[in-house]
């Protein structure tokens, strides 16, 4: 009898496991084909193991990594990209946190306000960037309004500066910070806040010692969602940038398309990936987050 029960439970567990595997399968297959394969191909290109006919050959060499490491200005551009990424992330937190908190905790029309945030995403990213260029240009909407109100005398030169890139990035990535923060804050148990207040914590203390720690997973998730694409951004510096805003995405584009050197392009991509991964690992360790909520 005991043996039967054991077998029965084991069988149920097996079939459950099968179900999980079946549910996971489509996603895993998709990732394997469209993420892992290209990734490994990039790695193979970077060590000279793909020939012109796109056949894999065994001729490994690190020459393009060494070349990339010796490239004049590449480090500057690495750091510049990371700087943009960090600044964008920081600003998205500062701007996004109050918004997410308001929607999650105070707002009566949550769905509607969230919808308002998402509507701009229905318009193509490229189109929104062009629109932003129109607003920020020296004869654009922003300058017209400021000049009209007499706040400034000369039009502000924003387009083609660091500020332009920065505005473009925060605008495009803010939502990716707000949504995970919102998801996290929405689950906040109000009785915890009552407990804090009952135990004599002031507003600031409640925020710093209760709300903030509880929303940390959302902040970490949001930071990753903003930092990674912002650092690798290509379109915004290409369209809104000037002479000082060339980013790593632009370098990789040029190496692939102008130099037509796929090996070097892949090597630079992977070096940058390693660079970012290191930063993220340090960040996650520092943030002491085991579970990241998306």
């Amino acid at each position, binding site marked *: 009898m005991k043996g039967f029960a054991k077998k029965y439970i084991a069988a149920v567990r097996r079939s459950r496991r099968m179900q999980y595997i079946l549910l996971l399968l489509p996603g895993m297959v998709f990732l394997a084909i469209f993420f892992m394969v290209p990734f490994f191909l990039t790695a193979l290109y970077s060590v000279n193991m793909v020939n012109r006919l796109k056949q894999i050959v065994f001729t490994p060499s690190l020459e393009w990594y060494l070349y990339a490491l010796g490239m004049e200005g590449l480090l500057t551009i690495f750091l510049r990209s990371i700087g943009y990424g960090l600044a964008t992330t920081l600003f998205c937190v500062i701007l996004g946190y109050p918004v997410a908190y308001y929607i999650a905790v105070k707002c009566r029309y949550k769905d509607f306000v969230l919808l308002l945030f998402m509507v701009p995403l229905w318009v193509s990213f490229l189109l929104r960037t062009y629109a932003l260029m129109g607003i920020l240009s020296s004869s654009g909407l922003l300058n017209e309004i400021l000049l009209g109100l007499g706040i400034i005398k000369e039009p502000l030169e924003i387009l083609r500066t660091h500020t332009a890139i920065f505005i473009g990035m925060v605008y495009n990535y803010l939502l990716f910070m707000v949504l995970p923060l919102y998801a996290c804050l929405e689950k906040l148990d109000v009785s915890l806040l009552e407990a804090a207040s009952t135990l004599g914590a002031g507003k600031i203390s409640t925020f710093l010692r209760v709300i903030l720690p509880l929303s940390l997973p959302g902040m970490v998730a949001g930071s990753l969602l903003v930092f990674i694409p912002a650092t690798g951004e290509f379109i915004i510096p290409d369209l809104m940038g000037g002479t000082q805003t060339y980013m790593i995405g*632009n370098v990789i584009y040029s190496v692939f398309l102008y*130099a037509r*050197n796929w090996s070097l392009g892949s090597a630079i991509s992977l070096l940058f990936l390693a660079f970012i991964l290191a930063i993220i690992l340090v960040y996650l360790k520092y943030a002491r987050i085991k579970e990241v909520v998306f």
Partner: protein
Amino acid sequence: MKRRDFLKIAGTGAAGLAVGGLSSYLWSQSRISSLESQLKRAHVPLALEDSLNIFNWTYYLNKNRINKWADDLGIALAYDTYESGETLMGELEAAYPGATGYDICVMTDGDVPYAIEQGYFEPLDLDKIPNFELVPNDFKDPEYDPENQYTIIYSYGTTGIGWNSDEVSPAIKKWADVFDTTPGGILDRYKGKVTMMPEVTEILAAALFNLGLDANSCEEDDLEAAKNALIAQKPYLATYAGTEEFMMGLQTGDFLISHGWNGDIGGIVYESSETDVLLEKILPKIKYTVAEEGGIAWYDNFAIPMGAPHPEAAHAFIDFMLRPEIAAINTMSVKYPFPTGRDYVPKALREDPLIFTPPELLAKLTRTRTFTPEERTRRDAIWTAVQAA
């Protein structure tokens, strides 16, 4: 698209269809119909495929006319465009050894030998392109494709400097003007109003011409000198502006001096369109100068990419585009010169050096040579260093 439409409205609206404009417009319309009627040659019925996929530079022909041609022959036309020659090469490179799906592409001379060597093109059958004989001899049998085995001239032009003659004085004459960083010099006076093109080949050529060096040089010392000149110039620039951006900037006055291609400047000076023949000059204050030190002359060419699915239709299309009246319509629409149509466009256009570069000048200019992958990597690294500085 938007900019052109705006120009069109601004051009026709603001000028209020001045009598001169109207008459020249009517003249061109009647000219076209007479051109079209002249060429009633009986078409040999060919077994053409039922579709044709074209990959061309943006803004490079009269779309209405090719759509009509395709409709007449019952061909379903797919027309895609690119803004940089590198996009085309990237497409071919990525598809190799398979097919791109395109039947026609348009490639600039410097890239042609590489593409031929790599096997990116199908050989042309000149028997199927009888109008090839109408191509002027200067454009036949080019160095980059002897005996036209793979390519036929599409259009051509030069790289130089476009500038606003109302605001800039003295006149821009040479590359040294746009690299002149002395206080009170051109760059100093027009700081923040000058642009260079973000095309590695072109911008390095400009810097090398300025230094009196070979524009195609890949020598370490030459490239180093070019890099330093570009870095010195950088603080004075508004940005590195591609075609769309500097055309817009020159029109609005945001930019006063722009490194660019003659046809783009032509597209600012003249009213132009991808669907209509328009001959009015609307911004004659914008001037174009081929620098004294020299400049790049470029030649774009028809080619049939490897594994093209509709080769018969592709040959027929090239033949159609070479017909003089079609070449003339294309020139009158987009303001790039189509060699076989030269004698069929109005005199003012034919004799405007901005559009039809005089042969004496063309002969003096430099062609971009084909760079080895190693040389391209080295030149690209210079560009990265300039961008990082």
